[in-house]
């Protein structure tokens, strides 16, 4: 069953010469029980999509259903079953974390206070501080508790881990996996590929308001390439033409450091290096933008 389904969802800001097509005929399905990553560079239309799904803004054309309900006509009923973390979380600065939680719990109604306590302990959140005194990480944690407090059927998280330290990111990942294991769904937007790779089942890639592709996350980098950096003892001992090796391109040598782009398997490269003394070997995943360019050139679908 699809928990999110959009049909030609389009949002245009402004008019005339100032018209901006922030989202262009989005057709997307997110299934129950999956963690779906919504990936794209800044300004791609991720936040616009989320705001449309939550009825904060209205579509120029097209429609969206969330949890089987019309995102616009049934927004109040829908919000009972959705937890939301905005990208730029703003809260009442003069209030303490506890006061904010109490207010939102009162507005939601039926919040399990024991679960709420468990969440705050797990995220190590000090509720006695005023919001204005929270660090960005703590504010993010408070936002996560607000989104999770009602055990929603669908979590909508806009850039959720910004400001979280590695330990908290780990706890966040665990909570996301638990959510999925309970049959609930997560829709999270990000511009960070590693974040999405770490927890998502499927990924939708958005660029300039258009959905380019929806892939299993495991396939996303398989079909791409990696950057390899080698630190060798003697550059002269390297085989003559690394570019000639299968999958190797864009080789550059600087002192004893070699950087190359590798597509496909490592084996041809490793065999060629048998005679060389390799001191270090680093592999970097391509950036999101590089994946875009490698697959879709200037945005054209292959």
């Amino acid at each position, binding site marked *: 069953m699809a928990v999110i389904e959009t049909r030609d969802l389009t949002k245009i800001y402004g008019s005339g010469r100032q018209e901006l097509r922030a989202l262009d005929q989005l057709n997307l399905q997110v299934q129950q029980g999956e963690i779906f990553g919504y990936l794209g560079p800044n300004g791609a239309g991720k936040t616009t999509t989320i705001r449309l799904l939550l009825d904060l803004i*209205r579509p120029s054309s097209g429609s969206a259903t969330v949890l089987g309900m019309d995102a616009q006509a049934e927004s109040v009923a829908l919000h009972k079953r959705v937890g939301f973390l905005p990208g730029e979380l703003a809260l009442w600065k003069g209030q303490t974390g506890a006061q904010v939680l109490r207010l939102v719990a009162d507005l939601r*109604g039926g919040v399990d206070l024991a679960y709420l306590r468990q969440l705050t302990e797990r995220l190590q959140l000090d509720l006695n501080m005023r919001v204005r005194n929270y660090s960005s990480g703590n504010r993010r944690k408070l936002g996560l508790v607000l989104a999770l407090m009602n055990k929603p059927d669908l979590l909508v998280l806009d850039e959720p881990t910004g400001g979280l330290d590695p330990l908290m990111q780990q706890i966040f990942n665990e909570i996301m996996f638990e959510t999925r294991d309970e049959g609930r769904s997560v829709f999270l937007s990000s511009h960070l590929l590693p974040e999405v790779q770490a927890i998502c089942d499927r990924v939708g890639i958005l660029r300039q308001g258009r959905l380019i592709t929806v892939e299993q996350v495991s396939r996303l980098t398989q079909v791409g390439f990696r950057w390899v950096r080698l630190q060798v003892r003697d550059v002269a001992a390297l085989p003559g033409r690394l570019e000639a090796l299968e999958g190797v391109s864009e080789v550059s040598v600087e002192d004893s450091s070699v950087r190359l782009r590798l597509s496909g398997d490592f084996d041809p490269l490793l065999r060629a290096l048998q005679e060389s003394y390799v001191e270090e070997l680093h592999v970097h995943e391509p950036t999101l933008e590089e994946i875009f360019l490698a697959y879709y050139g200037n945005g054209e679908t292959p």
Partner: protein
Amino acid sequence: MSGVIFLHTLRRTWLQMVYWGAGLGLMALFTAAMVPFFDSMKMVELIQGMPPILLAAAGFDADLQVLATPEGIVTVGFFGKFALIFAAYPVVMGMRISANDEDSGVMEVILSLPLPRWQVIVERFLAYSLTIVGVGALVYVGLWLGVALVDVQLDMARMATVVFNVVPVLIFVLAFTALMAALLRRRQRALAVTTAFVVASFVIDTVAGIAGEGLSQSLRAISFFSYYDPAGIVEQGLNPDKTLFISALAVVLALGSVWAFRRRDVGL
């Protein structure tokens, strides 16, 4: 309606309400306490010698004999400009109904909760309206303390009418501010238009007062200040038609703000 937004708004505003009420209440107290020191008949003679245009500009457009009474002295001394000073309060609170939270991003969090948009606007509007009554009550307490302090004879029932008759006018300003915030989206723009409206209303009321009878009196009706006439209340009692009209207008504008806020994008 759950009332959670209403109570939350009251909790966040009660202190400002007390500050405003205490400030205006102290002014009322001092004015009442000064009454025994006025030689009202001499004052009337002095004012009668002034050119009519200056009298009107100063707001003395009622029967000058009113000044000879303690109620008249308090009315001219304090309530003549009470609405103008107090008008800043509903503008500040009106911006809090939607504009401030929309500007800061808090509205995005509120509207992601299971709340219809109209409920947010209505509960906040009612809460801020109640704080206007609260400020009025504190002003009345100040007046009462001033009277008690110097043992002056004042018709406190009539003074209550003078104090609380400002409430519908200020609720109208609150509704106008809420409507501008809902229509114009941008906080600064809404604040600028509302401030210009208050200033223009004051200028129209004052200029029309100077100009006397005729077209200017019809023009005066478009100024909300003309719906608060403390000297008229002291002289002739409450004009219920004016009060009902401005109250109805406030309700229309408040409903308009709900309508405008419901149909548009939020948080852009």
